[in-house]
């Protein structure tokens, strides 16, 4: 009895810290989302007005949709690029494995801004790529759409978050039994079929882990779109930022933030549900 009490008491600071650091700010946001703002005064009469405004606004709805579409798109692109990389690191490399993994992570240490500006140098009108293409005679005028476009945003987002996808997939590939792939080819499966029927489903937990990380980070990134997205650079996050800072509309900002959070949670709950219901999910996670 005593020991269990002791445990409870010892756990208390941790619980307290988690509550204070994670839950409290979110709770405050939630409360604010039911308030109203008038000039610089927060009116504390609970109302659903902010959520109604959000529902009625094409702008915010479209921005939310755009954020989720971008998240899904970048997650998909990183998955396509990440699979061969992760496979290679896990299954083909033996001596330089840790070196490769570090190489993969190095860009993450350089900081967002450095990477974003490096891409500007690459993609700009007088940048490396355009200069090369003009030199090579492929084009006569620089391709403007390489930078300050949705394309540029997605290129840089893909580059920035690819390591997270690769890490997720790499772990999955490390635990993938090579003999299963051999067995598939033994039974007549070609490379593509073997990937689709064996490798893909068995590395799916890694894909989902990596995909969730990439998805959440893309949805939350406003710096990259702002700096390389040109006129398409507005995001729901920068709009929230505008509401909190420029417009001093904390309640509406909170309402949008909470709506995003709720959609994300719903999304992940659904994903978890689908995984746990699917046959392979049950097979991989055990139980039935």
């Amino acid at each position: 009895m005593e020991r269990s009490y002791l445990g409870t008491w010892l756990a208390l600071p941790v619980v307290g810290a988690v509550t204070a650091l994670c839950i409290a700010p979110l709770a405050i946001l939630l409360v604010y989302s039911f308030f109203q703002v008038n000039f610089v005064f927060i009116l504390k009469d609970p109302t659903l007005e902010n959520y109604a405004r959000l529902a009625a606004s094409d702008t915010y709805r479209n921005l939310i949709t755009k954020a989720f579409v971008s998240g899904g798109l970048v997650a998909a692109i990183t998955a396509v690029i990440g699979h061969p990389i992760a496979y290679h690191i896990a299954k083909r490399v033996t001596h330089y494995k840790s070196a490769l993994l570090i190489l993969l992570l190095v860009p993450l240490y350089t900081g967002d801004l450095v990477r974003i500006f490096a891409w500007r140098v690459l993609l700009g009108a007088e940048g490396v790529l355009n200069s090369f293409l003009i030199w090579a005679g492929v084009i006569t005028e620089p391709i403007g759409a390489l930078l300050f476009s949705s394309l540029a945003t997605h290129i840089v987002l893909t580059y920035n978050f690819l390591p997270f996808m690769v890490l997720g997939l790499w772990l999955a590939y490390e635990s993938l039994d090579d003999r299963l792939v051999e067995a598939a080819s033994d039974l007549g499966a070609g490379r593509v079929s073997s990937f689709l029927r064996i490798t893909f489903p068995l590395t799916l937990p890694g894909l989902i882990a990596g995909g969730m990380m990439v998805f959440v980070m893309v949805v939350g990134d406003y710096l990259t779109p702002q700096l390389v997205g040109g006129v398409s650079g507005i995001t729901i996050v920068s709009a929230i930022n505008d509401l909190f800072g420029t417009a001093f509309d904390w309640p509406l900002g909170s309402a949008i933030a909470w709506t995003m959070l709720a959609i994300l949670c719903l999304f992940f709950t659904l994903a978890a549900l689908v995984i746990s219901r699917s046959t392979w999910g049950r097979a991989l996670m055990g139980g039935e």
Partner: protein
Amino acid sequence: MTPAEQYAETEGGRSHRPLLTATGLHKNYGSVHAVRGVDFHLEANSYVTLLGPSGCGKTSILRMIGGFEDVSSGHLELNGDSLVNIPANQRPVNTVFQSYALFPHLSVEDNVAFGLAYKNLDRATINRKVASALTIMQMSEMAKRRPRQLSGGQEQRVALARAIVNEPKLLLLDEPLSALDRRMRKDMQIELKDLQRRLKMTFLHVTHDQEEAFALSDWLIVMNNGRIEQQGTPQEIYQCPATSYVADFIGGANRLPGRILESDNRLSTIETALGQFQASSVSGLTPDSGAVICWRPEQLHPARGGAIEVTVTHHVFRGAEWLIEAKAQDDTTLSFVVREDAVPEIGARIQLSFNPENAWIAADDSAEK
């Protein structure tokens, strides 16, 4: 006549061309030579075992046939067609993997149906074939289960069903029984042999367990250090081991090294620490070459005036008979079998004799290694 030719002869008339031919087959991983140029045939509708200790190259051979490893040099032909450069998924060969390699995300029936997807069959045919394979392996009731819900023996059956459902010409089995307990292994041995006969496929079975090899094989290939030491029927290998190594590996034989005094291909005389003996011998021995004389425990028996004098050291009860261990004067341990009513006392000094026709002189290859 080589043993392989003899074998072809015994099977002759039914099949003129071997199912699989390996010629000068070689496999190296960098400077490591796993298989050092081996030649053998597999006849259709036979049960062949590749026997040898781990690292002897037997698994490499299996993987080259399966298409999972490239052939470094040499040839592999299946029904007269070269297998080199044919990818694994296009070879009419299936494998039962050592740890079964069942697909964990698929049910038993989906595992079994996996390979049929590549054969242009309609759904009904696939279902029928899967059901039939599961029935053969007595796994019909487990059809909806997933691999992790099966016991080792059940997984083994599913792995077999998954392979045989494709009706391969050649089924490769990589240590298929090693994960099973002893009792299950015995049962599975009988079943495997039975299965091979019923399906009329050729099974190539890799194992390090000589008992398993003897129980199953029509033809046995003993390997060591990347080379074939001897191939032949189990009886030949048991009774007439070509080398000291084979005699040792298949186990149980008493061996006594010495030098050949004279040899006429069928009968040789050997000089050992315990004296000179004459016995049947492997062909090709030359005077003064190293050799061993081997006796099976049941071929030695106590006899007054026998040629070998020993002191009894141990008794081992083996049911109807006892296995006796004894030491000769140069400390060589010899074992022999006696009936229950004739067990000598420990410490007793007795003489052993043997019939020269039953003893066997094999080449001593230990110097090579």
